[in-house]
């Protein structure tokens, strides 16, 4: 009787305990799914190949057509023409209305032999150069000579849409005097480059320093008070809020980059700050890896007349590589996701051609900048988040494969 009651009781508490773990895992799964869902819904539609290769800032050009080609012709309608696209038979160009964002008319296609193959850039006075036609150029304004020989104007600036402009082109234009075109912008090419800069710089400094520090702490240092003190200080560094690293970066490291000629916040500064931020991560994962290497391997090496340095660099370090790789992976994730430490050190100006000593934004800071504008661009932010997620995912998988390969090679 008593026995059975106990059993029943136990069963109930078991149910509750189990239920709690199930519930907890379900909640985390739901949260993760919700985040992914949110980002996907918001951002997926904005992801196009353009995004990766385009500049962020739109640029304007004043262009014209080479004189001897600047005349009407007869062109065949291209076979693959979208329904909402309009083709100018006399000039051999396809125009389309672009509706996302501000309304505009873009050139999507030119047929072979079209006069638009022979463009000249006259934006800079006295320096006319040839101009390469690109898909997606926005046609803002068109100055032309009409059939009566008068000059006239057309374009989206005058509230004309693609259909109107094609009509003008085919019925009225005899010669194009000049055009104002604009590239689309909104791309993240510059930020991607900046992100790689940051990754490169931070790992370049953090990896050798971190690994060496871990080797010192674990292999060379005597196990005394100073050593354990040092270790707990390093542990503590992981808990420092990253904005503090940012502040320290500007105040301490900025003069260093100034010596290299920096005048503003810059990517080198950001990279160095991140390197400091990464050190604890790398030291810890390396130490973790060193700890599990059996002493018998070290003994074996020493008993063969290897010096302790030879032992460390030829036997111990190679065995620790999978662990170090894990540290690198964590670090890359950290660099890609970091924003607080970077806002002060690289600035928030989205730069299309970043360099070592210029400003620029990592992808995360790019998001920050986009959300900090007068009109927060939610879709774009979500799209970039998606890209970051995909990148981190890819990284994880490749690291897994790499360390598995390493493991297989040795076991």
């Amino acid at each position: 009787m008593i026995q059975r009651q106990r059993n029943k009781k136990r069963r109930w508490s078991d149910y509750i305990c189990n239920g709690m773990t199930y519930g907890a895992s379900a909640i985390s799964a739901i949260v993760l799914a919700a985040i992914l869902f949110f980002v996907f819904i918001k951002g997926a539609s904005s992801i196009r190949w353009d995004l990766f290769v385009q500049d962020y800032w739109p640029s304007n050009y004043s262009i014209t057509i080479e004189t001897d080609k600047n005349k009407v012709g007869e062109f065949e309608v291209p076979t693959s023409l979208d329904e909402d696209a309009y083709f100018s038979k006399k000039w051999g160009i396809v125009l389309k209305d672009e509706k996302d964002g501000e309304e505009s008319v873009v050139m999507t296609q030119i047929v072979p032999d079209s006069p638009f193959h022979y463009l000249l850039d006259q934006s800079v006075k006295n320096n006319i150069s040839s101009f390469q036609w690109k898909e997606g150029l926005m046609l803002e304004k068109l100055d032309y000579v009409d059939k009566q020989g008068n000059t006239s104007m057309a374009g989206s600036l005058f509230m004309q849409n693609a259909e109107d402009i094609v009509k003008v082109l085919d019925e009225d234009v005899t010669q194009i005097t000049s055009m104002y075109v604009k590239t689309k912008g909104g791309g993240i090419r510059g930020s991607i480059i900046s992100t790689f800069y940051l990754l490169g710089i931070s790992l370049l400094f953090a990896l050798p320093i971190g690994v060496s520090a871990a080797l010192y702490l674990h292999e060379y240092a005597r196990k005394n008070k100073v050593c354990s003190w040092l270790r707990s200080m390093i542990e503590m560094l992981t808990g420092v809020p990253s904005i503090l690293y940012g502040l320290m970066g500007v105040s301490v490291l900025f003069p260093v980059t100034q010596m290299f000629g920096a005048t503003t916040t810059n990517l080198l500064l950001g990279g160095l700050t991140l390197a400091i931020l990464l050190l604890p991560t790398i030291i810890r994962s390396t130490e973790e890896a060193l700890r599990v290497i059996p002493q018998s391997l070290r003994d074996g090496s020493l008993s063969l007349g290897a010096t302790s340095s030879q032992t460390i660099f030829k036997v111990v370090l190679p065995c620790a590589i999978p662990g170090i790789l894990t540290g690198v992976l964590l670090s890359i994730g950290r660099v890609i996701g970091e924003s607080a430490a970077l806002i002060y050190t690289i600035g928030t100006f989205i730069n299309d051609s970043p360099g070592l000593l210029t400003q620029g934004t990592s992808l995360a800071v790019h998001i920050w900048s986009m959300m900090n504008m007068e009109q927060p661009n939610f879709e774009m932010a979500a799209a970039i988040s998606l890209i970051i997620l995909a990148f981190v995912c890819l990284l994880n998988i490749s690291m897994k494969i790499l360390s598995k390969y390493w493991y297989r090679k040795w076991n």
Partner: protein
Amino acid sequence: MEPIFQVEHLSLYYGEKQVLKDLNIEIKKNKITALIGPSGCGKSTFLRCLNRMNDLIENCRIEGNIYFEQDDLYHAKRDVVELRTKVGMVFQKPNPFPMSIFDNIAYGPRCQGIKKKQVLMEIVEQALKKAALWDEVKDRLQDSAMGLSGGQQQRLCIARAIAMEPEVILMDEPTSALDPIATAKIEELIEQLKKSYTIIIVTHSMQQASRVSDETAFFLLGEIVEFDATSNIFQHPKDKRTEDYITGRFG
């Protein structure tokens, strides 16, 4: 004949604890000396004194003298790295490096600065042949050493030690992790190696000690109770404790 190791009044402490107590022993060249005794009596510790592997243990302190070929082993000016090339060691558990078989054996010579592939190849082949492993691995020198069986791994470790052309090989229970067949192979190998090397072997197997060794030292609680020719130890032990131990009435 002159002894290769001459140990005088050797005492060893781990912190406050005395593990070896006033040992005196002379180990003869090109002989196999077996160290037997119950667990924890300090055999491994003594063995590790002979190539100064105890230096790595932080609270380890040594008193007394050891002479290796008439030179003070613990002399302040002694080059420990060079010493270890002359006194090799094989451990209880096979501990090949996670590298290819070739690299494992070439490891020691490479650490001494030998780089020529030709020379290394020659060394590796000779070492593997002496360790009776050549025929089994000659086609897979570039494979990972971790893929070998336990017995093969242990012979690889012996080959690795041989590749350094040491004068002495210290073996700490080299067959305790192996099955009888692998053990027999290694014993055969030890017999072979006796011609060119001095071998000091720690073992828990009385049979092994009596089969392979020329001399045997019986350790008990950090002291050498008896040290004599193996046949004497096993047939006419002088000390009561030795007799108890080898007949299995003890420890």
